[in-house]
């Protein structure tokens, strides 16, 4: 009987340790008025070296900016399910501002926001908002345009592999932007797209990268969160682009550049609004000009001609003379989307659910 008791005790300790660890990973918040409390929810672990990693870097920037005025909490690896609603509700109990940083948190965020009208919410990459929920995203397609130019110029096999996550407008827009840019420098270029239906599964991402390389791709782009594809590209001696974060450590020879998400300026701005009491529900879509989208250093392997091209396009995007989606552009089925000179509206871009003409394969619904 005593053995059973000790067994139970040990089990309790084991479980307790596990929960304790989970708890200390997010710093505990002491309830203390006068301090602004900001919560963050991440889809992946902060060590994913990609999407969630960059959001957490921005969280640390908020802490560094405001010091003792602000306390931050984060919860990582929250699935886009009932769990998300539970975690957001928990944070809403004692936080002033909550950033929910994945597309799938959209409905849970709004639901909790209605129940907690005094708490302010910020949802990344969604399209629904209300009085106490702002939405924000970055015009990653501008970055995709730039890496598309590089990819088109660098491919020898004229085959570019694209590892896609979920068929949502954000991801589809990235594929279309990269493709249009790539064919503008290399009309024979072909895109192979593999959908993984996950944001984060390093093993599967690596398998997909290998499959694409085996099928002749010599430049790999990804819209998933881990550096697995970069590592495979490095081993197989092909080129790749980092996603969300600079992945040069994983592909010193393979990485041509990375699209870097820089959320810090926005998070600092919104936290300041809370401190000043001037927070309003807004819809922000920042691009290269706002600093939200950055490129890592372009590899020395990229010839100057292409570098100049990227430089020009970058300037054009910043000063507004170039839009990556400028007509004439047809949809995949051949129907006209944009006529000569027409620029895509933000509404069109936000709801994009079709491939542009020239991309093979079927877009999943």
């Amino acid at each position, binding site marked *: 009987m005593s*053995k*059973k008791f*000790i*067994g*139970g005790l*040990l*089990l309790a300790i*084991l*479980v307790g*340790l*596990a*929960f304790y*660890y*989970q708890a200390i*990973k997010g710093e505990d918040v002491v309830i203390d008025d006068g301090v602004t409390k900001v919560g963050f929810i991440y889809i*992946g*672990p*902060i*060590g*994913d*070296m990609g999407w969630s990693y960059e959001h957490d870097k921005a969280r640390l920037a908020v802490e560094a900016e405001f010091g003792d005025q602000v306390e931050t909490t984060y919860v990582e*690896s929250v699935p886009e399910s009932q769990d998300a609603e539970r975690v957001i509700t928990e944070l809403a109990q004692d936080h002033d501002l909550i950033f929910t940083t994945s597309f799938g948190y959209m409905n849970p965020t709004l639901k909790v926001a209605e129940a907690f009208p005094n708490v302010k919410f910020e949802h990344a990459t969604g399209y629904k908002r209300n009085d106490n929920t702002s939405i924000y995203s970055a015009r990653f397609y501008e970055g995709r345009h730039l890496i598309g130019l590089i990819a088109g110029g660098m491919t020898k096999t004229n085959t570019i*592999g694209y590892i896609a996550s979920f*068929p949502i407008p954000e991801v589809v827009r990235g594929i279309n932007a990269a493709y249009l840019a790539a064919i503008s420098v290399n009309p024979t270029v072909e895109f*192979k*797209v*593999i*959908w*993984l*239906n*996950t944001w*984060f*599964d*390093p*093993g*599967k991402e*690596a*398998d*997909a990268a*290998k*499959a*694409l390389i*085996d*099928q002749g*791709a010599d430049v790999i782009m990804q819209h998933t969160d*881990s*550096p*697995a594809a970069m*590592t*495979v590209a*490095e*081993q197989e001696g092909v080129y790749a682009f980092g996603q969300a974060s600079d992945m040069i*450590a*994983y592909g010193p020879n393979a990485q041509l550049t990375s699209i870097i998400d820089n959320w810090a300026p926005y998070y600092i701005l919104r936290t300041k609004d809370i401190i000043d009491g001037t927070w309003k529900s807004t819809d922000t879509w920042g691009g290269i000009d706002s600093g939200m989208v950055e490129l890592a250093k372009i590899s020395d392997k990229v010839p100057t001609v292409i570098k100049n091209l990227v430089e020009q396009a970058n300037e054009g995007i910043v000063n507004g003379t170039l839009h990556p989606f400028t007509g004439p552009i047809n949809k995949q089925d051949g129907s006209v989307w944009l006529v000569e000179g027409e620029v895509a509206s933000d509404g069109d871009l936000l709801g994009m659910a079709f491939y542009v003409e020239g991309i*093979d*394969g*079927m877009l*999943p*619904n």
Partner: protein
Amino acid sequence: MDLFEAVFHGIIIASTPLVFAAIGELVVEKSGVLNLGVEGMMIIGAVCSFVVTIETGSYVYGVIAAIISGSIAASLFGFVTQYFLSNQVASGLSLTIFGLGMAALIGQSYTGLSLTEFPELNILTLNNIPILNNILFSYDYLVYVSIFLVFAVYYFLNKSKFGLILKAVGDNHDAAYSLGYSVKRIRFFAILFGGACAGLGGCYLSLVQTPFWVENMTSGRGWIALVIVVFSVWRPLWILVGAYIFGGITIIQLHIQGIGINIESQYLSMLPYIVTIFVLVFISTNKRRLTNNSPACLNKIFNADL
């Protein structure tokens, strides 16, 4: 390498972590213990092998570290379930949660590092038959270890005295105990073996397949390994079949998409799971095969004092 060889190669690589983890769990379950902590032991094996390989520069030490760390994680489970008689399901689940957290802690300062290519086995080369060479002899040695391990377990369980004792413990622990066998000790060693195998499966991910370390990198492979054990109806050689089918469908669906065949990718992602459910349903129609092979004392606590 042409496409066929590449697909074949990809399947073997994607399946090997599953082979390791599943064959270990099979032995554990054959002894009558259900350890749901496979995911936790895998991730601990993945991080420890990666850290040791980075620190020592030797893959051999890395693989040894995976075996040792997986066993240590398993021994936690072994102590609480065998000697302190705690509930196996709850202990296994907490081992998974514990393992994921612990691995994140251990690996904190090792994100951002990557390894050179794992050495391939080049002893048996048949240069005059390049296709066979690419299909059969172009892997790292861990692939051969995993296949060898499956056959070794088959031999052990069916042909050796110790294997029969282990199965007896799993089928009727009271009878085995009355014959003088130490049920707890035998189960404890089976659990250690399961942990070592899960650790190997994890190290295959972090040293060969990806190869780097990020948190949560096992992404549910431990659970798939548990499914494969049921899929095999606790028969060792069927572990190979189950793991390769699972890995095979995963890889083939990636290639189908790359080639541009028009099938909704969600269906393709679902396919491995659909096949598994289908097989599970098919298996349970054959009561006899199920009762003959499944360990009767699975997940039952053995109470007698040593």
